[in-house]
């Protein structure tokens, strides 16, 4: 395997097979595992790991006006505040949004804009999204909140069968493009099976909707405002572990970050790393570690929009480096990495050095 050859050439590390979890191991794998600070060689010492990455705030953007220190949930509030101020048809609804939401994303909005614009719904996800589709089709900018992405499945039919296909089946006479669905997403450490899921892969199988996952507050506000402005129904997944952990200088005015554009965070020549949401920060550390310990230069790409995804940026990068590693939190089988790797393989198969694509997931339960 080309990738294997690279690593071994750069660092002639000999390592013994210490059984970590039993099963098949390669020396390459063990080398990489040993380098990870989160890995303990002693399986008996089952240490508790909290957040396994450090969030590094990005420099404040200068082109959008004055900035203010905000964390992720505050940047979402700011985006919603800008929307409600500028668009008189905008309404926000969902479970418990009136008092501010279980993650405080809508704090203060009801007091500021009135209870007919920020209101609670009863406990009915299918009803919430169906209602949102109708409101959007009738002309309101509808921003629905699903309290946890794990609860989005009752609304799956509405999203896939109604929202995604409305424009197409009515020959462009009707659409629910003004609908945005926001939902906390991803592992948080103590969430277990029903407060940690990343369901983006289920929705990517459906043309007609857009799926966006930000990596931090500045990105979140810009991408959310783009989703709201976008004339297609959008699902905006907010990594819940970053709600408080990610703090940055975020512009107070409204601004938009374009959808379907991946961002190259770090240029490199040996390996392309692709991730979205929380995992971007893990891969930032991986890239730094690989550079320091193995002399490997990684190019890190944040996908940002999962559907429709930016194939150009990723393929261009893979042509340059020749190797691709995709990392995401959701299960491996049928996860979005499978789609990325197969598309890249088809598009650039004559130009890549390695026909080996790794997908790595965080096994979160």
């Amino acid at each position, binding site marked *: 395997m080309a990738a294997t050859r690279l690593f071994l050439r750069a660092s002639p590390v000999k390592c013994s097979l210490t059984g*970590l*979890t*039993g*099963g*098949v*191991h*390669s020396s*390459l*794998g*063990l080398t*990489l*595992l040993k380098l990870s600070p989160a890995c303990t060689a002693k*399986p008996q010492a*089952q240490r508790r790991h909290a957040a396994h990455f450090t969030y590094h705030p990005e420099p404040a953007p200068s082109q959008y006006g004055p900035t203010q220190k905000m964390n992720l949930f505050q940047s979402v509030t700011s985006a919603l505040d800008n929307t409600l101020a500028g668009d008189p048809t905008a309404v926000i609804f969902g*479970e*418990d949004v009136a*008092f501010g939401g279980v993650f405080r994303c809508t704090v203060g909005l009801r007091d500021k804009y009135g209870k007919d614009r920020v209101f*609670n719904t*009863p*406990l*009915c996800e*299918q*009803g919430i999204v169906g209602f949102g589709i109708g409101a959007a089709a009738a002309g309101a900018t509808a921003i629905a909140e699903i309290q946890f992405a*794990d*609860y989005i499945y*009752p609304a799956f039919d509405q999203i896939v069968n109604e929202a995604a296909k409305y424009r197409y089946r009515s020959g462009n006479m009707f659409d629910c493009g003004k609908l945005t669905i926001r939902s906390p997403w991803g592992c948080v450490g*103590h*969430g*277990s*099976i*029903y*407060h940690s899921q990343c369901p983006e892969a289920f929705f990517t199988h459906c043309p007609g909707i857009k799926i966006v996952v930000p990596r931090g507050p500045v990105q979140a506000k810009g991408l959310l405002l783009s989703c709201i402005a976008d004339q297609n129904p959008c699902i905006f997944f907010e990594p819940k572990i970053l709600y408080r952990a990610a703090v940055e200088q975020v512009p107070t005015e409204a601004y938009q970050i374009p959808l379907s554009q991946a961002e190259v965070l770090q240029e490199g020549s040996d390996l392309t790393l692709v991730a979205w949401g929380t995992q971007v920060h893990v891969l930032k550390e991986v890239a730094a570690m690989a550079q320091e310990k193995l002399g490997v230069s990684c190019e890190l790409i944040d996908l940002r929009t999962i559907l429709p995804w930016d194939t150009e940026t990723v393929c261009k990068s893979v042509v340059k480096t020749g190797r691709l590693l995709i990392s995401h939190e959701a299960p*491996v*089988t049928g996860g979005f990495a499978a789609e990325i790797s197969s598309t890249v393989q088809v598009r650039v198969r004559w130009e890549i050095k390695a026909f080996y694509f*790794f*997908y*790595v*997931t*965080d*096994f979160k339960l």
Partner: protein
Amino acid sequence: SVEEFLNGARVVVSARTYADFTPQATFDIKKCDLHKLEEGPPLQAVLTREEGLQYYRTMQTIRRMELKADQLYKQKIIRGFCHLYDGQEACAVGIETGINLSDHLITAYRAHGYTLTRGGTVREIMAELTGRRGGIAKGKGGSMHMYTKHFYGGNGIVGAQVPLGAGVALACKYLGNNEICVCLYGDGAANQGQIFETYNMASLWKLPCIFICENNKYGMGTSVERAAASTDYYKRGDFIPGLRLDGMDVLCVREATKFAAEHCRSGKGPILMELQTYRYHGHSMSDPGVSYRTREEIQEVRSKSDPISMLKDRMLSNNMASVEELKEIDVEVRKEIEDAAQFATTDPEPPLDDLCNHIFYNDPPMEVRGTNPWTKLKSVS
């Protein structure tokens, strides 16, 4: 009379024989509100001394267990999500005494009380809360996922357990075993679409299903008035007959459950019960429970309608038990909880090999990809 003499001599005589206690008494219980029913449950309930002591013990065990779980959660020995049942003990105990152990029961995530009444032990429950291998779900389920024979959990997704319960009821009807299924949900879940789908199916096919809405007035932080167009949850079944009763009175719950079980077993189809109850804790351990209701309200319910106090007062004022006897039960319960907590804290966590087991049913063992391409995990089931 001899009784008067003995009662008068109560202060003097310290040792009491069991012959001094009233073996059973009849109590008036509140009338239920009825929907599409000609008659309701009886207005009086007979309670024997043994039954009273048993209900007291079980309710006190649930109460102490939940308070211990609260303590352990604050010490970070229990982590994740924990939804406590204190205040609602009369529902779990009353329902269990109205049905047989061979009947079936399914509920949502506030399930610790039901796990106990359905045959779980405090040790197993607490070990499951702390995620150890002695737990009732082998440490893999946690607070929301506890199961015993004929108790289908323990379900995290709100409302999802109700159609499941109807399915269990169908199995009972199909197998002709005269068993019923008790299907519980809360006031928040009552607004979920699948509940109404289930009402229709259960009624159409006359399934032996008791739907029980535990109305504790708040769906997480939303009061019922703000969530439901109709707070008469017992009428929401429309074509399904319904009862509304005081869920803080264990005898009321027992009589209503017996009535409902009889209704189902006689082939009349499903029935709906609304238990008006209250939870002292917040929705979960991350909810202080006082931002959407006043402390005075909680205090008022505690002082006027606490299920354990109500039963205790009834038994004491009718001379069915002595204060010392009940105190003894308290001491025994406390000890049981302490032992269980000790076990739950010291039992080892499940082995890493258990991580991927029981995903599919598969024979031979299946390979599962782990967090990196070089780790292969095994799934045995």
